[in-house]
Each structure stands twice: as C-alpha cells, then as structure tokens.
C-alpha cells in the first residue's frame, strides 16, 4: 500500500514546493496592494521561456540560471511600474482588470515569439538526473525542491523580520496610508515586493519545468491559479501560510492523480473511475470551501474594513 502511495506523495511534495515559490509572490503582493496579481502565473511562464532562449544561445549553466532569475525579477519590476503604479488611486477593480490585461499581453507576446509551439525546456545537469528513493524512481529535483524552498523561505522571513526594508514592508501591509505618512517610500517597497516575488517565481520555474519539460504560453495559468489558491488557503498575506497551503495542495493534487490506482490496489474499486482529471478541479473546490468556511485561511489575520 505504502509503495503505491509513496511516489505520488513524493511528487506532491515536489510540485507543492514549486507552487509555494509562486504562492509567496501572490501573498506578498496581496498583503501590500490588496491586489490579486493575475499576471504572476504568466511571469512564472515567461521565466521558463527566457530559460529556453538563453540556453539555446549556448551559454553555460552558471550564467543562464542567474540570468533567468535576474531578468524575471526585472520583468516583475517593469510590470508593476507600467501596469499597476498608474492605478494606485483607482478603484480596486481597475487594478485587477489591468492585471488581467497584463496576463493577456504576456501570453500573446510569448505566443508571438514562440509561434505558439511547445518549447523543450533544457535539461539542467544534476537536478534532471534520475534517482531512486525507496520504491520510487524520480528526478533529483524532486528531492532538491523542498529543501531549497525551506532555505529560501527562512531567508525571506529573516529579511522581512530583521531588515529595514522588511520592516517597511510589514508597515505598508498593515496600513498603506499611515506608512506613507510616516515617510516610508511606498514605491520602492512595492517594487521590492514585486522583485522578490518574481525572483522566487523564477526559481520555481527552473524547478517546475525540469519536471514538466515543455513550455507554452499557457503553461503559467494553471500553476499560477493553484499557487493563488494555496496563498488563500494558507491565509493571504501570510508567507508560512502560503508555503504550507502550497504543499497541501501539491500533495492532495498528486494523490488524486493516483487515486484510481490507489483505490484499485486497495481493492476498493474494480475498474478505473477516471478520477485523475479532477486533480485540478479539486484545488478550486478546496478554494470555494475554504472561502466559505474560513475566508481568512489557515493563518490569515482578520482584516479590518471600515464600514
């Protein structure tokens, strides 16, 4: 029984870690701007495409990976400056529409550049190699991901709790206007948030596309939405919440993918039910349930809204 479940669990942890890296970007931006950055999943996809093209130019790995991360961070920075900054005083709906517009633009831009074809993601030595753990054969990346996620999250939490810019971020997320009045440079805080979020999405994309090695303009949509659900599940605005939510969603999703096999091996069903296709739908069902039962998520703070 365990042998049946273990491989699904393992890939669940891995993909959960990759969702976590995207989810942090959502949760940080929402914490500060109260904006669902619908384009964040597409930033993740763009990071994948950039890697494809940089690797194709033949530069060595120790150049291409850092280059991807830097360019992705820059993309995030530019998106904020061009599409969100002008709308800072506009109604919330406008910023959300702008985010949807950016998502649409990025997808179309990539469609144009790639001609709408699936692009093969370059194999990255070391993490692309196969490894055998217990009953499961998998790529090294599966094992590397959770470790890397934990390291990055610890670094990020330290940054937020110990540094000056981190303190500014916390202040802004608590009270935007007061923070501004206290002399905090709102724009640089917001930019930093987008840079960090996009950087982590870049890291996530390197790990994710090593496992699912083709990139197309729509590749970011589903992981993006799932990461957002993870952020809501964990309590939007909370980084540990987003990470835990992402792992839970990653694991559940993969268990559902294997549910037919698991149930069959356990003797509970005699023919497959085709439940695997519900792995995506499950995420959204979970979202609706959590929003109805506990809208603040697992670790979210109760928001105070003026009536």
């Amino acid at each position: 029984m365990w042998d049946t479940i273990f491989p699904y669990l393992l890939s669940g942890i891995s993909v959960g870690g990759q969702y976590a890296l995207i989810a942090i970007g959502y949760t940080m931006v929402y914490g500060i701007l109260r904006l669902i950055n619908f384009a964040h999943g597409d930033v993740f996809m763009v990071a994948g495409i950039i890697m494809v093209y940089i690797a194709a130019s033949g530069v060595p790995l120790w150049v291409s990976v850092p280059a991807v991360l830097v360019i992705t961070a820059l993309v995030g920075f530019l998106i904020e400056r061009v599409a969100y900054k002008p709308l800072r005083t506009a109604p919330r709906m406008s910023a959300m529409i702008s985010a949807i517009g950016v998502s649409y633009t990025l997808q179309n831009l990539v469609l144009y550049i790639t001609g709408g074809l699936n692009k093969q993601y370059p194999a990255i030595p070391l993490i692309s190699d196969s490894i055998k753990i217990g009953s499961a054969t998998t790529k090294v990346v599966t094992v590397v991901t959770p470790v890397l996620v934990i390291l990055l999250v610890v670094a990020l939490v330290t940054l937020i709790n110990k540094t000056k810019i981190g303190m500014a971020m916390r202040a802004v997320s608590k009270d935007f206007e007061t923070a501004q009045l206290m002399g905090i440079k709102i724009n640089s805080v917001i930019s930093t948030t987008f840079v960090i979020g996009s950087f982590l999405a870049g890291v996530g994309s390197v790990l994710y596309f090593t496992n699912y090695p083709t990139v197309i303009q729509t590749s970011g949509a589903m992981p993006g939405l799932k990461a957002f659900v993870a952020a809501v599940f964990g309590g939007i605005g909370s980084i540990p919440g987003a990470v835990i939510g992402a792992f839970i969603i990653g694991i559940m999703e993969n268990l559902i993918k294997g549910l037919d096999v698991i149930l069959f091996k356990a003797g509970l069903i005699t023919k497959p039910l085709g439940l695997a296709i519900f792995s995506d739908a499950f995420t959204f069902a979970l979202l609706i349930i959590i929003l109805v039962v506990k809208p603040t998520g697992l670790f979210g703070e109760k928001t105070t809204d003026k009536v």
Partner: protein
Amino acid sequence: MSELDVKVVPDVETAGETVLKLEHLTMQFGGVIAVNDFSMHIDKGEIVALIGPNGAGKTTAFNCVTSVYQPTKGKIYFHGKEIGSEKLHMTPDKVTAQGIARTFQNIRLFSGMTVFENIMTAMHLRRKSNLFTQVFHLNAEEERANRQKAWKLLETVGLTDVAEEMATSLPYGKQRLLEIARALATNPTLLLLDEPAAGMNPQETDELGEFIVRIKKEFDLTVFMIEHHMNLVMDISDRIYVLDFGKPIANGTPEEVQQNPVVIAAYLGSEEIDAPVGRPPKAEESRASQPKQAEAPLQGASAPIEVAEGEEEVEEA
C-alpha cells in the same frame, strides 16, 4: 476623566408610547467596548438626541439599532418587537422594512445616480410589483405614484431644481438634505439622523432644526439624532442621552442635561463642547485639575464644534 471613572446612569421612564427601546446594549470589538450597557427609549413623536464626545460610541449605537452590527449583549425593541439582540441578527434591510430609516455621518448617496433616482431607489422596498411586472412595465400606476411621491419629497427638501443632477455633484448641505429625503422615501416611523448638521454653518443649522421639526409633524415621525451642534440639540430635542466611553452618563431634558456636572466634565475632558446654553457652571465644579481648559470653550456661545473626523467609531467588518 478616564474610562474607569465613568458610571452608568440608568434610563428614566417616561409616560408616552415607547417606539424604540434599548436594554443594556453592549457592543464590543475585540478588546474595545464601543457601547457599554446602554439602556434608553424613545416615545412616539419625540425628538431625542444622542450626544457625547467623539468616539463615545454614538454611531455604533445607531449601527446596532439598524442591524449593521449585531450587539454583543443587550436587546433592541421597536414598537415592542425585538429587532436585535445577541441572539437575533436581522439584516439592515429587514430593519428598514420595519419602519426605521437612517442617514449616515459620512454621506452615503448613490454616486452613479441622479438626485431623483436616489429617491426612487429607496422606494423599491415598498414595491407591490414583482420582477416580471417591473421588467415589462406592467406597473405603470405604481411607478407613476412613486414618481409623484419622489417629486413631493424633493419639494419638501427643496431640491426639485437639481432633480436630474448627479447626486454627488450637489453641495454638501444639499447632499445631507437629499439623504434625509431618501430616508423618508422608505416610509419610516422612526428616523435616525447621524450628525445631520455636520459641516453646516449656523444659519443652515437653524434652518435644519426647523426642517426637522417640520418633517416630524408632516410625516408623523419619531426622530433619534446624533448631533454635535449644541444649539440645535438644545433647541429641538425633547430629551437627550449622553454617552461617554460607550457608557450612558446622563439623560433628561435639555435643561437637565446642560446643567449636569458629569456631562460638562465629560465634554471638557475631551476638550470639545459647544457652550451649553444657560448658566455656565463654575470651573472648579467641573474639573479642578484643568481650570484653564474649563474657561475657554465655555465662552464661545454660538460657534459650532469643529468635527474633523471622517469616521468616528471603531469599526470592524
């Protein structure tokens, strides 16, 4: 005066027919007790004012009456029927349907609509037509009656000339009048006014006082208002309740309240009162520790209090 020094003063019964009754109303937000053990009542045909320093919990009390908040403790009765308690939470529209209408401290008009449409919207509540008859315009008679009534209401508040203007393009004072007219369009028997004179000059305030008395008669209303302009309060109120730190510290007729040393102390402590009309009490009587502050505000006899705040109460969704 600190919060702990405030003593709850019980409600005093009166002879009339009770319209609204609060029993030990308490509203707590987290650690903040915005309204604390507040009992009061209003009789039919009265104008009752609720006064108190900023942050005393006046608007919160209003919000409990109109079911925007569910009270933490206590009961609210309207015409003898329970409309809110720690167990019973109606939605605000149900309360309005019972016959309680209100205005807001920070004006809340429908910004995307004209003055006329704002009034028409408030009449949706008493509709006899349904979705089908409305969509296919089978309710012409009702619609005509409603339009006539809306027009009459605009005449009452003197806004017919701006009927087709966008509501939010009106000057401040007219917006307040429109809010009152809109509240009247729901056919209330009890009208709650949250600082109707805020931002008005003395002359406008006087006119507003006359206006409130007039609509009270014309529409057979009972009026419950929060107000900072003491002249207005003293002029038109039958009785007054005073809140401080959420607790009722005094009640009675205007004369009784303005001579009540506890009230004076509460206002002076928070450095804001429009001078009470009538004999000023001696300084040492009210606040021995701050005699200087006691003098200054007592002299300006008619200047209205600056109300600087946008939203007064501790509010939480």
